[in-house]
């Protein structure tokens, strides 16, 4: 464990770690683009230069391994001046189109220039012209002029997704990122390249031009797209949710997430949700408040409890399962509870990186609770029960993210054979509204609207907090369970602990606000 000094601060790093990692550890500011902790070292941006005592030439921090007693500093005027110039080299051919660039507001160039920049441009020549709006594939668009050729995206496709679609073509300042002719950037993790792009060169087709980032709030949560449970940030404002980005968690997802998971925000917005409780009988549809509808259903469930069964998907939190199952078993004595597996064939598949076949964030949590209450519902019993009419009322806690439930319609066909279907769920499923049997739909809150715990496929418990509320009237599954048992809702008393992984950690490739230099830029006449 060698010790070194970074700008006078002593720090101990692991054997073989670089000066850059020591800088991260001490949280001393250091400019860099091409270095990314999840990728190999390229050493091409040349921004992380620093002085090492006893070494006449400045060295780059990302490729220099720390040795015992090393004294490193990047505070000298020589280094500061060098960084300014290297930043200027990055900028001389970079278009000044921040007002129309999607990255503006979260751009590496903007941020680092604020802190380390030269503020005195001397470039008076024409900029290099390169390709704009290059369609790289189904998800990503490239603007070569904005690209600073840090090669992060190329290394990502080589090392993480292992698909190697991207490369740098041509030489010198004509270099451009691109794909081989006839190929496109098309893999299940392609949008990570947009995240790691420090400038606005790679933009997501899904998000570009939809919202300025400074109008978005973000909140950290856990992706409910599959049982990996990647830690993510959801970005939203009063117009709804706009995008999802990964958050580093060494134990779960590292730095990455899959493209599928980035679509989860679409199921959170109002237009894809049930917003009102719907009671429909013999073709007559009645809309009412969700709470009132649930309360109304309580009477029926209690009276017919021998013929009531429940079907649960793995889409809800551990706390909700606990309250629902305990209510059903203890208060209503309903033990016909079944686990809805969405895709039996590929349920246990795993692509080796993040994507799992089990598209529920909390299957483990559900199974734990079912085991706790010794419930061993076999799917065949449900099917035969529905057929021989021993099950007349069916409570279904449906999927939130319906896109990943391939055989949703088949299941609905099965459920429609009961006399009364009580559908608890957030996602708007149109086929429910055309069923002929009696149906009551109680809209639920989605995972970003509540607190709770998911247990992922590896058994890691992840607590998350509420981000915002989209449908105010919707219930959580706990509230629905209380109402269905005939009780009234009381105000919540227990406060949840702040989840451990959500501790405010400084994002590595962002400059801390307090370190930012005041804007000293003065436009000088004739400086261009």
């Amino acid at each position, binding site marked *: 464990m060698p010790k070194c000094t970074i700008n006078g601060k002593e720090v101990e790093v692991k054997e073989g770690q670089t000066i850059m990692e020591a800088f991260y550890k001490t949280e001393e500011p250091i400019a860099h683009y091409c270095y990314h902790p999840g990728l190999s070292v390229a050493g091409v941006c040349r921004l992380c230069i620093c002085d090492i005592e006893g070494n006449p030439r400045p060295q780059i921090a990302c490729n220099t391994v720390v040795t015992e007693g090393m004294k490193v500093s990047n505070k000298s005027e020589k280094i500061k001046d060098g960084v300014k110039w290297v930043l200027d080299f990055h900028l001389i051919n970079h278009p000044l189109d921040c007002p129309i660039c999607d990255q503006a507001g979260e751009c590496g160039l903007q941020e680092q220039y604020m802190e380390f920049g030269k503020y005195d441009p001397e470039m008076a*020549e024409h900029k290099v012209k390169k390709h704009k709006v290059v369609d790289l594939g189904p998800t990503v668009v490239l603007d070569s002029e904005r690209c600073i050729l840090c090669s992060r995206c190329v290394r990502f496709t080589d090392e993480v997704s292992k698909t190697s679609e991207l490369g740098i073509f041509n030489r010198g300042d004509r270099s451009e990122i691109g794909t081989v002719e006839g190929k496109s950037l098309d893999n299940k993790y392609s949008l990570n390249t947009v995240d790691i792009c420090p400038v606005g060169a790679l933009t997501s087709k899904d998000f570009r031009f939809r919202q300025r980032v400074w109008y978005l709030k973000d909140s950290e949560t856990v992706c409910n797209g599959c049982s990996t449970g990647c830690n993510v940030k959801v970005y939203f404002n009063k117009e709804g949710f706009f995008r999802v980005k990964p958050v580093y968690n060494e134990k779960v997802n590292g730095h990455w997430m899959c493209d599928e998971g980035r679509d989860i925000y679409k199921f959170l917005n109002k237009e894809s949700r049930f917003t009102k409780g719907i009671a429909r009988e013999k073709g007559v549809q009645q809309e009412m408040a969700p709470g009132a509808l649930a309360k109304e259903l309580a009477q029926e469930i209690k009276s017919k409890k021998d013929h009531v069964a429940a079907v649960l998907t793995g889409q809800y939190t551990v706390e909700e399962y606990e309250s629902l199952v305990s209510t059903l078993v203890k208060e209503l004595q309903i033990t016909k509870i079944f686990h809805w597996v969405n895709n039996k064939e590929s349920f246990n598949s795993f692509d080796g990186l993040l994507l799992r076949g089990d598209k529920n964030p909390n299957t483990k949590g559900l199974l734990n609770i079912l085991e706790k209450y010794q419930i061993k519902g076999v799917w065949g019993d449900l099917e035969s029960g529905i057929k021989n009419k021993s099950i007349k009322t069916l409570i279904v806690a449906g999927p939130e993210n319906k896109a990943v439930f391939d055989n949703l319609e088949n299941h609905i066909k099965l459920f429609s054979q009961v006399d009364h279907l009580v559908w608890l769920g957030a996602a708007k499923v149109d086929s429910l509204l055309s069923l002929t049997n009696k149906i009551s739909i109680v809209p639920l809150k989605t995972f970003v609207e509540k607190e709770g715990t998911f247990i992922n496929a590896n058994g890691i418990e992840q607590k998350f907090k509420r981000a915002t509320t989209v449908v105010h009237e919707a219930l959580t599954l706990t509230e629905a369970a209380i109402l269905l048992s005939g009780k009234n809702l009381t105000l919540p008393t227990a406060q949840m602990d702040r989840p451990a992984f959500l501790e405010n950690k400084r994002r590595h490739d962002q400059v801390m606000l307090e370190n930012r230099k005041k804007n000293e830029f003065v436009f000088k006449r004739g400086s261009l």
Partner: protein
Amino acid sequence: METKLLSEFYHLDEFRYLDGYKKHGGYVNLAKALNMPPQQIIDDVKASGLRGRGGAGFSTGMKWSFLPKNNEPRYLVCNADEGEPGTFKDRLMMERAPHQLIEGMIISAFAVGSKKSYIYVRGEYYFPVEVLEQAIQEAYKAGYLGKNILGSGFDHDMDVYRGAGAYICGEETGLISSLEGQKGQPKLKPPFPAVKGYLQKPTIVNNVETLAAVKYIIRDGAAAYKKFGTEKSPGTKLFSLSGNVRKPGNYEVNLGYSLNDLINNEGGGMKPGRKLKAVIPGGSSAPVLTAEEAMKATLDYECLAQMGTMLGSGAVIVIDDSQCMVDMLGVLMHFYHHESCGQCTPCREGTGWLNKIVHSILEGKGRLQDIDLLVKVADNMKGRTICALSDAAALPVLSFVTKFRDEFEFYVREGRSKVRGNFYAQMHH
């Protein structure tokens, strides 16, 4: 006076073929070397003080001793990607004496324990490739290559690899990238090629002239070789003399030879009515010397380093008073801008920027502050990148602008060359 050690028989056509080569003592030293312990050869090369002839001038024996001491397969690569503007010595050596290189390479490979070697030849050198391939076939037939060479139990295979004509592939890690089939881009050091090179295996990369000289160290012994040249720069070297002299060409002289003598004796002096203005002593990336400095210079690593320039690959470019320095810098900047691999930002953007500034001046659109800007940009490109191409582009700028500032200022003020009118504008409009 030329000292013909390597180039003794270059004038003979038969020296190109195996029979002719053997007539003049060919492959005798290979047999001698194969009977020596490999470590002995490395020690001899170290003792001879042989320094890399490709440009950097690093001790060859030292480079060989950086190889890890294990049984890992290792490679020997001959760097024949001769791309430095002004250099044409390797081409002559490969065309006139392919077997001299091959023999030197087999000896070197035996010394470092390599079973496979490559000759990486510059893409434009089509004829040398043909000559080398023919010579390698001859050597295989005669048993100098292949299994159990001359009954010594040493196996060695050799291949020629044609580059695609990129200057950057003359840099050893760039060459290795290209040889591996990747884009020719230098790699981060460490790890150095001697530890992790071609296919992640230990690799030694040496210049054509360096490897050819090894044969003479075996033939005469280290002490005899050391008698040539100076104390710190032993041996002879081929200099590619070009530019405004009467007799341009390759001349082999002792290191430490006077630059004045090379120009005026071997080179036949300046053309009638012309005066020496400047000399680039070591290929286009070496800082330029003024006529005054050039008259005092001797051709060895130390003297030229002292004068702020370098011996480089030994390409002496003579510039007389009919040449415009702004024009010349324009040519050089175009070259470096074209050849930058584009990996490191200061070089990728800097070479383009320098090229644009110089061409703005050449087109008569220059501003006086552009001259200082050239210096500032070049200063900040120096020593900031993975390989030395950035330095190679920056050094000529710094020396041209500081030593011939009056010509640059004249060009900016008047919009035309001080030496030969508005020639550039006439050419391009």
